[in-house]
């Protein structure tokens, strides 16, 4: 009995080791942004149903940075084919990719996503501006042309039109691509309007340092980093009815009976206002394809083409229904043409 088990396990290890090297992968592997994840899942599932001769792609989560890190591990069957990202790939990441042998990367922009501020459904109406958000959540604020420690405790301290609530904001953590958009479009924008850049430069910082000073979020517990997904943010707002959370538009639309959305610069977020560019806080969503894997992994080319088809990302597609903001017609066509032409970064 024991002899049998020993032999069996030895055989098993041998088989496993040899098969691991020999088996060719016939399934697309994708990883990355949790914002893009639901869209990638819908496309992957429909792709599997529409093309019975290809296997359904495997989609992992892990955040934009995590996905791109896996993506840049190298070329080969045990590396992923596509990285989803809710921000543009960084130069440092392109460099890391090139060093690992991933020299040709094709960038695909699938559409846009809005970032919304929402409170509990029974709360008051909110009208925010980037300046308010900067003044409430930045580590340092501008007072008389100088950057000083942020001490505001209530939203009404920041702007008398806002409710008399203690500041408690649940913002995306550092590993999320959303964080970058939050910093760029709200903190830096608000900082600029209030003259924070000049104030920082006057204090002896260079341009980069000044932006970093604007971006820094206060660390006194009033702005809470959420490293999980939006469900965690929703749970925080459920338990703290006077909290303000940052969500993706799609998540908000799926939970509109629990959340009340704030306007930014007087514009309420919706697919229309984001597509037209009126709503200020939106960002493009991407995925990155390893060109070396095209033609090697079965179905990879077809998957990307299927993703870019109007029946997937058009204005009346399942992705748009879930909450993706479709790019204008010309831009979608441009993406299809670029991919077909094999344009790399």
């Amino acid at each position, binding site marked *: 009995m*024991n002899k049998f*088990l*020993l032999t*069996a*396990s030895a055989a*098993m*290890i041998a088989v*496993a*080791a040899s*098969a*691991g*090297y020999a*088996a060719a*992968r016939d*399934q697309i*592997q994708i*990883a990355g942004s*949790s914002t893009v*994840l*639901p869209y*990638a*899942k*819908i496309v*992957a*599932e429909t792709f*599997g*149903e*529409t093309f*019975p001769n290809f*296997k*359904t792609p*495997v*989609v*992992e*989560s*892990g955040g934009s940075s995590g996905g791109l890190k*896996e993506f840049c*591990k190298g070329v*080969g*069957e*045990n*590396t*992923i084919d596509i990285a989803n990202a809710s921000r543009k790939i960084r130069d440092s990441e392109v460099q890391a990719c090139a060093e690992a042998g991933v020299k040709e990367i094709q960038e695909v922009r699938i559409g846009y996503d809005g970032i919304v501020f929402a409170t509990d*459904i029974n709360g008051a109406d909110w009208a925010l501006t980037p300046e308010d958000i900067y003044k409430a959540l930045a580590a340092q604020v501008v007072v008389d042309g100088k950057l000083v420690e942020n001490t505001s405790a209530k939203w009404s301290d920041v702007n008398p039109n806002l409710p008399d609530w203690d500041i408690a904001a649940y913002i995306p953590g550092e590993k999320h691509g959303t964080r970058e958009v939050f910093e760029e479009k709200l903190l830096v924008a608000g900082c600029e309007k209030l003259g924070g850049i000049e104030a920082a430069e006057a204090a002896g910082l260079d341009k980069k340092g000044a932006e970093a000073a604007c971006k820094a979020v206060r660390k006194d517990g009033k702005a809470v980093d959420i490293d*999980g*997904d*939006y*469900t965690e943010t929703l749970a925080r707002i459920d338990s703290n009815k006077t909290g303000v959370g940052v969500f993706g538009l*799609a*998540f908000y639309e*799926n*939970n*509109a*009976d629990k959340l009340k959305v704030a306007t930014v610069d007087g514009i309420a977020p919706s697919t229309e206002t984001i597509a037209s560019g009126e709503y200020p806080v939106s960002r493009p969503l991407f995925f990155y394809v390893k060109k070396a894997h095209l033609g090697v992994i079965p179905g990879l080319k077809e998957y990307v083409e299927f993703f870019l088809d109007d029946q997937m990302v058009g204005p009346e597609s*399942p992705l748009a229904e879930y909450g993706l903001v479709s790019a204008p017609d010309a831009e979608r066509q441009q993406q299809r043409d670029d991919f077909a032409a094999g344009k790399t970064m």
Partner: protein
Amino acid sequence: MTDVTFNGASVAARPARRDIGLKRRYAAEQRFRLYGILAIAIGIFFLFALLFSVVSKGYTAFWQTSINLSVNFDPKIIDPQNKRATDPNVLLTANYPVLARNALAEKLGVETSNRPALRQVSGMISDGVRTQLRNIVVANPSIIGTTQNVWVLASADVDSANKGQVDLSVDQARRKVSDQQVEWIRKLDADGAMVQRFNTGIFTFGASSRPETAGMGVAIIGSFYMMAIVLVLSLPIGVAASIYLEEFAPKNRLTDIIEVNINNLAAVPSIVFGLLGLAVFVGFMGMPRSASLVGGMVLTLMTLPTVIIATRAALRAVPPSIRSAALGLGASRMQMVFHHVLPLAAPGILTGTIIGLAQALGETAPLLLIGMVAFVVDYPATPLDPATALPVQIFMWANEAERAFVERTSGAIIILLMFLAVMNLAAIFLRSRFERRW
């Protein structure tokens, strides 16, 4: 000295009892019992709170709203150009959802010219109907042209509304089901055309972005593969290591160091094993990502210390007299171990192994790094194909935005808890059935 005089005096006068603090000691015992009962009560309270919250949220996941439709498999819709005899792709790519939509529209009395209403009718039926009807037609093409009674899944939003999980008092623009659809749901309910049926799909379907067609099939198979691999690898390796250490190895500093390290290894956080697996199995040995084989090997590393510790304890529990008797009758040490000690230690070893397996079954962290926290739709045919695991599926569903995934998350927890309970029951059964006392 005062004691002596006091005692002496009392003995002479009357046999007074020495104060030995009896009252105080009884009170202390009473208090301690109270603390014990309190501790158990707290534990039981939290256990029941957990079970109550999981079961009360999750039991509805095992029931799924279905709609009974008499679907007319209209050749004009399935095959408008009538070339299915020559082109097999026609049957695969036909517009099946329209068949179901038309059937439901007819049942609800909606005109086929009323486009906005038709869109709402489509929204009542799951998109999974495409594959469902396609499979019916592909399996039996002669069905085209006939009318059949088919149970189709309702869409997740209708399902949630039908189960009363959507707050219908808010304005209809803020929820996913419209007032019109709610009215239809009530009508279909009254007609008996919409009923909640047992949800077999939650056990058989793979992952899906649509809650109503999402299931734990891939996760169950993935977990099964991993458990099989963990069992096949960790039991022989663990038992061999412990027999050698316990029965053959000399007791010196080296074996002491090994023993300490094994005990420490048992306490290493599981995510560390995931990092190791990513670097060694996927990176260095080039094994496929997301495969249950890699997952099983990582979990084996995690389970081995538990198995070794349990096995050594079981071996040590066999009385030395058994060993002496075997050796005294002329058995070799090898015969002594395999004929006498190991069979007596077997129940303990099996119990330890099953508990180690149960631990491995509930592990998510190490699987995160080797790519098993993923959206996998297709069943894994071999342990080399991408798969997920039961706790991973719970984690994935907990992060979904749709309301209908809330109940499914709790439903998945119930399924995982049942698997764990079965494994622990097996451990108890083995122990009571085979345990020997000396």
